[in-house]
């Protein structure tokens, strides 16, 4: 016979908190279940039964309130109990006299970063940009009025930035993209589909020199199946094929006069 949840818990001599912890449920929810304010969710029933070492059927879905117990009071929503914001902190000037404020020492001013040699990647980038701009290092040095070897990392970075901007203004040659048709076997598939629909006979030349002639009855990206004159079906692996075509029909012989 099913028992109230609180009864079973007390029988096992465990607290609500322990039960909630074992069942992995919020303690408030377990309290609501025990008080009968809420009937036990089916998904939680199994957890509670496991936590109490009883069968699910031993627990009443809707517990009766414990005799003499005060009704469970719901917690007010969190918004209502949120504390009012604290008063603004007094400014240092308004600090009470006995409290010392530790002053942060002034940060020392930076006196310029040390000059660092250019990075290898910068030099490689420079070389690449000069090549693309059809310029020599000597020409660039003449423009800058100083040798490139004398440039540090920051100065070279500025030079690279200028060259990059110049490169953008120079019209670039048209680049050939991949010569890619519509799809991997788009055109061949179209050809074979048309041949199959028309019931055409095709003549296939194989790598071993032999030929096969037949009507296309199916194909895949890797094979073509044909039916030959005998009615036999042959599947040809495309890897074994050299070429194929529609054979030219022999001209009909004119009847003898």
């Amino acid at each position, binding site marked *: 016979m099913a028992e109230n949840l609180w009864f079973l818990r007390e029988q096992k001599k465990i607290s609500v908190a322990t039960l909630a912890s074992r069942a992995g449920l919020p303690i408030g929810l377990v309290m609501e279940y025990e008080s009968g304010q809420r009937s036990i969710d089916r998904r939680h029933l199994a957890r509670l039964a496991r936590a109490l070492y009883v069968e699910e059927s031993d627990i009443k879905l809707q517990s009766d309130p414990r005799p003499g117990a005060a009704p469970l009071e719901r917690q007010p929503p969190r918004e209502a109990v949120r504390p009012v914001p604290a008063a603004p902190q007094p400014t240092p000037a308004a600090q009470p006299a006995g409290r010392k404020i530790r002053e942060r020492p002034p940060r020392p001013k930076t006196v310029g970063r040390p000059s660092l040699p250019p990075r290898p990647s910068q030099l490689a980038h420079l070389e690449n940009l000069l090549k693309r701009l059809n310029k020599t290092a000597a020409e660039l040095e003449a423009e800058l009025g100083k040798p490139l070897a004398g440039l540090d990392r920051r100065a070279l970075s500025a030079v690279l930035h200028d060259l990059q901007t110049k490169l953008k203004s120079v019209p670039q040659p048209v680049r050939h993209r991949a010569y890619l048709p519509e799809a991997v076997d788009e055109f061949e598939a179209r050809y074979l589909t048309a041949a199959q629909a028309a019931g055409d006979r095709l003549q296939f030349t194989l790598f071993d020199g032999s030929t096969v002639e037949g009507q296309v009855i199916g194909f895949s990206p890797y094979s073509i199946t044909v039916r030959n004159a005998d009615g036999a079906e042959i599947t040809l692996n495309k*890897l074994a094929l*050299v070429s194929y*075509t529609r054979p*030219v029909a022999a001209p009909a012989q004119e009847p003898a006069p």
Partner: protein
Amino acid sequence: MSLGDYLRLLRAKRGGVTPWEIEAATALPKGLYRQMEQRYRAMGDEEAIRILADYYGVPYEELRWRHDWSRKALSRTLFAASLEQRPLTLYLWNGQVVTGRVLWWDLGAVALDMGAAEPLIVQRHAVERWAPRLDAAADDGEDDDEDAD
């Protein structure tokens, strides 16, 4: 037939040994064999070709020669030939030589109009070499969309 197609053929003749087994049996870096076989541009360096020539027991020169006739180079030629509507000669694996205008082409086959009533559909893997040959532009990595692997 490109080096990739030829390697695939040699591998099939070996009873379908896997690329991983070949890499394990040779000093090829991991993944290179698969790339050499599958990618459209020419992959692998002289050393890799030499290793594979030894593995398959075929002349190094033959593999090296095929390395220069990649699938991508054929695509480039087909593209130009169909654009300019000029005849192209294909030298096929079985010794056949066919010349015609490119009607269409994809990654599997080429349709040539040879002046006959019906076009000839040539399987690309059967093409040994072709003429005229375009100047080999650099098969750089940026034009690599065709390498759909």
